[in-house]
């Protein structure tokens, strides 16, 4: 139909336009699509260097665009994408939909050559679905609490240890030119990460053991009410801010503190990008419960490329040597690299990251959590922007979530 065709064409047009700057490569080049972060720039480049010049064509874009492009391509069983970056949550969904190639045989075949037993079992588990490995672990990511150490020192204050401290500090340091805190509420991914922290630190989590929503109980309402209170100290436009915008706000000295990924820490000390070199410090997020994620690269079920070649390319990028170099940008999931004491001395955010990992929580392990996230973040934003009361918005979100999960067979 005309409308849907128009929308489809429009979406594809937007997505295609984003990759238009990529030079044309040979037809059989391995096409990688990935989210764009400094860490992923490093790892996609490592994959590019693992094979001869021109064999690999990486395309980096914001994560929501990447997942849309992948969903459209893979649902039509097209071989246009060979390798895809996936978070542990999106991996569950793509694997459940039958869009990914199981890697068990290749894992076994190359286990010794690439020392794959160096990955801890918990990481391999998060890269698996229904007992099959689907992804090569590339980074363990966790959210840290960034704060302006110089301003806190000047005020004789310590970084917040609880959510109450955080609210008080955000109010204390807020001014017209420098927001009290960053806040990333752009749907879906960024808003879901921010809400995940509040829902765990103040609320009781997302679901009970039967996948019934509990994010709208009394503690959940208190959590989102707190998020709404906190938003008065966020920079203007926070509802359209994702990680890029929040990182810029911290780098440019336009915000005092807030939740942001480990992978952005190095850019705070990069004099070409940052005005606050040496002024930012990190601690574990107050209250705990911020997101922990294990991300990796998977092979499309529909790729016509050589599986062995693609696996070796990914394994080379995930080798111990590569990950030691990449430790500047992301926490490597290899035990041998994680236990390297030199890294903690070299990169001053590592101690905070280890503490954050201990108190952090991954998203619920369900393939449909991103769809749930679409519903929940929409209603949380309605509450935060005053379109609806917090309780009413969360009840509506819970009702829509139950309906969705029932239609996907969760309550049989």
């Amino acid at each position, binding site marked *: 139909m005309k409308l849907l065709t128009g929308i489809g064409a429009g979406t594809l047009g937007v997505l295609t336009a984003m990759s238009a700057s990529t030079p044309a490569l040979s037809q059989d080049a391995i096409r990688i699509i990935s989210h764009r972060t400094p860490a992923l720039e490093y790892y996609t480049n490592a994959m590019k260097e693992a094979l001869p010049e021109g064999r690999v064509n990486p395309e980096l874009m914001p994560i929501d665009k990447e997942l849309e492009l992948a969903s459209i391509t893979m649902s039509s069983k097209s071989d246009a994408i060979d390798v895809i970056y996936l978070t542990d949550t999106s991996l569950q969904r793509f694997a459940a939909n039958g869009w990914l190639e199981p890697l068990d045989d290749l894992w076994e075949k190359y286990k010794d050559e690439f020392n794959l037993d160096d990955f801890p079992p918990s990481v391999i588990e998060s890269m698996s679905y229904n007992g099959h490995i689907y992804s090569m672990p590339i980074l363990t990511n966790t959210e840290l609490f960034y704060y302006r150490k110089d301003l806190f020192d000047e005020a004789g204050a310590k970084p917040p240890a609880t959510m109450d401290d955080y609210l008080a500090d955000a109010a204390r340091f807020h001014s017209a030119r420098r927001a009290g805190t960053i806040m990333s509420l752009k749907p879906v991914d960024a808003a879901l990460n921010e809400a995940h922290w509040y829902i765990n630190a103040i609320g009781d989590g997302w679901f009970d053991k039967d996948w019934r929503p509990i994010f709208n109980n009394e503690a959940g309402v208190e959590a989102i009410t707190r998020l709404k209170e906190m938003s008065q100290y966020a*920079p203007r436009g926070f509802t359209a801010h994702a990680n890029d915008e929040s990182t810029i706000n911290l780098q440019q000295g336009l915000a005092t503190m807030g939740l942001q990924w480990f992978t952005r820490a190095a850019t705070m000390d990069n004099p070409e990008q940052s005005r606050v070199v040496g002024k930012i410090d990190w601690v574990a997020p107050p209250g705990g419960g911020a997101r922990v994620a294990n991300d990796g690269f998977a092979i499309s079920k529909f790729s016509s490329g050589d599986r062995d070649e693609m696996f070796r390319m990914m394994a080379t990028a995930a080798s111990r040597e590569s990950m030691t170099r990449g430790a500047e940008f992301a926490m490597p999931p290899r035990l041998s690299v994680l236990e390297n004491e030199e890294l903690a001395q070299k990169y001053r955010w590592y101690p905070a990251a280890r503490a954050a990992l201990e108190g952090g929580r991954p998203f619920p392990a369900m393939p449909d959590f991103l769809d749930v996230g679409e519903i929940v973040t929409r209603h949380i934003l309605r509450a935060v922007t005053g379109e609806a009361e917090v309780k009413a918005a969360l009840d509506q979100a819970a009702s829509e979530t139950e309906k969705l999960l029932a239609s996907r067979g969760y309550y049989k």
Partner: protein
Amino acid sequence: MVRWQRSLWLFFLPSFGLLALVLLWPLAYAVYLSFFDYYLGAPERTFVGLGNYAGLLGEARLWNSIGTTLIIALGSVGLEFLVGMGLALALYRLGTGARVFSTLLFLPHVVTPVVATLFLKWMLAANWGLVDATLLTFDIEPPDWLGSPFWAKVSVILADAWIFTPLVMMVLYAALQGLDTAQIEAAKIDGASDWRIFRHIIVPALIPAIIFTISVRLMDVFRFFDVIYVLTGGGPGTATETITMYTYQLGFRMLEVGKASALGVITLIVVAALLFTINRTLTRIYRRGDQ
């Protein structure tokens, strides 16, 4: 009709075949899919009859998105028409130099909407965007252009108007070229004011162009997607979620193809009904003017 002319319909077949392939087949397929519970990740689809339609029509989100679509459509088309008409009249009276100005004014429409909207998005970015930075220089606290439900709607309307007002202006300016100047001269001699000339001579003469412009723009705005997708993504919350954004969310984010197809069919019916009503109303006004 002579005998050789009877076979002329065969010449119609290639174009009809092409239309059927690119327009009617996808339309029919979407209508077909709308009768299924079809989640792209599920191994099979289930026939649900009118279930998708009933489910959607019972959803507050659908009615909210229709309301938002109407606000944005009427706001942007209204603004485009008023400003476009003003500019067309100004160009008409300008005489010399009109060609240069019309070319300059048409520039926003030449840029691809996605690119134009990306420009706007960075211009409206909080704190470091051009608009905010300029206002802050003069100690003026700017509104939260893309973060407040009200200002996000205003920003979307302004973005659409910025891109499409030049089109409205050009159509109306072209129509003004065919105006019978003798009537205006006669009215002036009779002592008619500028307003009366505009109301009783210019507007009636422009009615066909006005009907065309409003119909085309309304049809476009109801399918409005790229500008909102880039500028606000339908947010904050559901503040700028139009019916096409909702269809997109269902189809491309949630992968609920059956429901998205049903929503597409509903949109088609709503737009067709609205256009039919507007066309009839404006035509009736036009004919009444003739009598």
